[in-house]
């Protein structure tokens, strides 16, 4: 007992020091942005830029592309996360269970989007998107197809870590031998056990979509980062404030997402 308590104390100190130091490292550049956006002409601090940013009526009138960008990015986020989860989670589970030989191939495919810089990928995506525009229209929302591909490397790695941590085969076989169909196995057995991994994959997707600039810009479509970039040509400190606000917004969204599915978890009895 004393050993446990001592170890827990050591862990707490370790945790606080590590998290504290690394959080400080993360905070510094963000502070640099805050410092720039609160500069008053002639020295001193002012909140003018932030006041302008949150004057929603005036912002909508002066910079209408910002609102269009925010709406487009919101739609893109939902669409990308949905397509990614629906496509990747069942596929990865299936490969683990039935087609272990394909694992390397799936892994390579999921790493490929990251090996080619987006600026070159656009050259190859252009003909594909010409067809998408012809068949589905030219809405910014259809960028989600490309975004899912961009997010594959990150989502794969997060899901792979989660699926490795549980014994997928035994769980699935046990459920199947008890008469569960495949949808039940996926939804009620596998998914709850890889909750952290799914959440991580969703986190990365949300963050990627909200931070993506290159592909949306090169296809001349609307998107949050494209709008912020256009804003920066007219008012630099307002754009930096908008970028910082977008980061905070993404943080809040992710924090809210982390509460999804906790209800059931906390009610399950502790494993012995």
């Amino acid at each position, binding site marked *: 007992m004393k*050993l446990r308590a001592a170890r827990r104390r050591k*862990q707490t100190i370790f*945790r606080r020091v*590590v*998290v504290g130091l*690394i959080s400080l490292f993360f905070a510094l*550049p963000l*502070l*640099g*942005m805050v410092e720039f956006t609160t500069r008053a002409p002639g020295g001193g601090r002012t909140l003018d830029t932030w006041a302008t940013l949150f004057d929603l009526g005036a912002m909508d009138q002066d910079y209408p592309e910002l609102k269009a960008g925010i709406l487009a990015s919101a739609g893109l986020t939902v669409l990308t996360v949905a397509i990614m989860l629906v*496509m*990747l989670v069942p*596929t990865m589970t*299936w*490969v683990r*269970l*039935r*087609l272990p*030989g*394909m694992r390397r191939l*799936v*892994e*390579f495919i999921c790493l*490929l989007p*990251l*090996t*080619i*810089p*987006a*600026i*070159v*990928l656009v*050259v*190859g*995506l252009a003909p*594909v998107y010409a067809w998408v525009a012809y068949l589905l229209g030219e809405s910014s929302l259809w960028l989600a197809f490309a975004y899912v*591909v961009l997010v594959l490397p990150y989502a794969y*790695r*997060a899901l*792979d*870590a*989660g699926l*490795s*941590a*549980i014994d997928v*085969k035994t769980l699935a*076989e046990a459920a199947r031998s008890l008469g569960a169909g495949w949808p039940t196995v996926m939804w009620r057995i596998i998914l709850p056990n890889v909750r*952290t991994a799914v959440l*991580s994959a969703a*986190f*990365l997707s*949300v*963050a*990627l979509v909200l*931070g993506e*600039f290159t592909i949306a810009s090169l296809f001349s479509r609307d998107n949050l980062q494209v709008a912020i970039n256009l804003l920066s040509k007219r008012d630099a400190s307002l754009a*930096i404030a908008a*970028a910082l606000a977008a980061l905070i917004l993404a*943080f809040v969204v992710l924090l809210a997402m*982390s509460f999804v599915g906790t209800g059931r978890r906390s009610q399950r009895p502790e494993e012995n």
Partner: protein
Amino acid sequence: MAESPTTRASTGRKPVGALLGVVPFFAYTTIFLGIPTLIVVVGAFLDGSGRPTLGNLSALAQPQIVSAFVHSTVLSAVTAVLGAVFGALLAYAVSTAREGGLMRRLVASLCGVLAQFGGVTLAFAFVATVGFQGFLTLWLQKVGIDLAGSTWLFEPTKGLILVYTYFQIPLMLIVFLPAVEGLRPQWREAAESLGGSTWNYWRHVAGPILAPSFIGAILLLFTNAFSAYATAKALISQGSPITPLQIGGTLSSEVILGQENIGKAMALGMVAIVAVIMTLYAVLERRTTRWLGR
């Protein structure tokens, strides 16, 4: 017990029914990943008028292109290891917190946001902090430490490493946390009750379990840094010392035209390098999983 489907699959023959399960994935990636990649690869073998040539590939042997590849590889490897080590430390630290507690959520959400924070804004933020006129530089100068002695922030081997690590650490946390959380406390207790020390636990129990995910995450971090473009472009707009910047130059230059296919050849080179690293990773992973007899 009836022959389980898994033993049949592991003998190498793939039942058609099982293959159907992965058709949606392969169809999707063929359209939105396979075709673009093929177009780029084919483009690497064409010249300006569309005729097949090996000239683009031989152009890759030019000294500045080779040195860019070297710089890129070194930069990516260093930031991958740095990000992996500190990210893993952070992941472990966070996993010791109370499950469902606020700290874990806050850190995970923060890292989720910062993992994709990049481009012009990140470069600006760093210059605004540790550049010549950065607030931290000026503050440290008052205290007596002079950071602004040189343009270190804008060199690929120094400043860029720092800036890339900024988004590599959060990425590592997000990707590695699920693995660390898979460590059961019972294993730690079992190791202790058998008389093992902390070192023994890490060396023989937790280490081998986490190793495949750790190495896989390093691979992800490497490729993430390898193809990162926007941040480097804003920070080092002169001289294109790394490969993605050179590729950008071939595609966007309004001074020297007609180099796009060399850019595609460079992209092919990047894919080749990552393929090599992936092979090494596969070998390494096979050896580490053998420890658990999986």
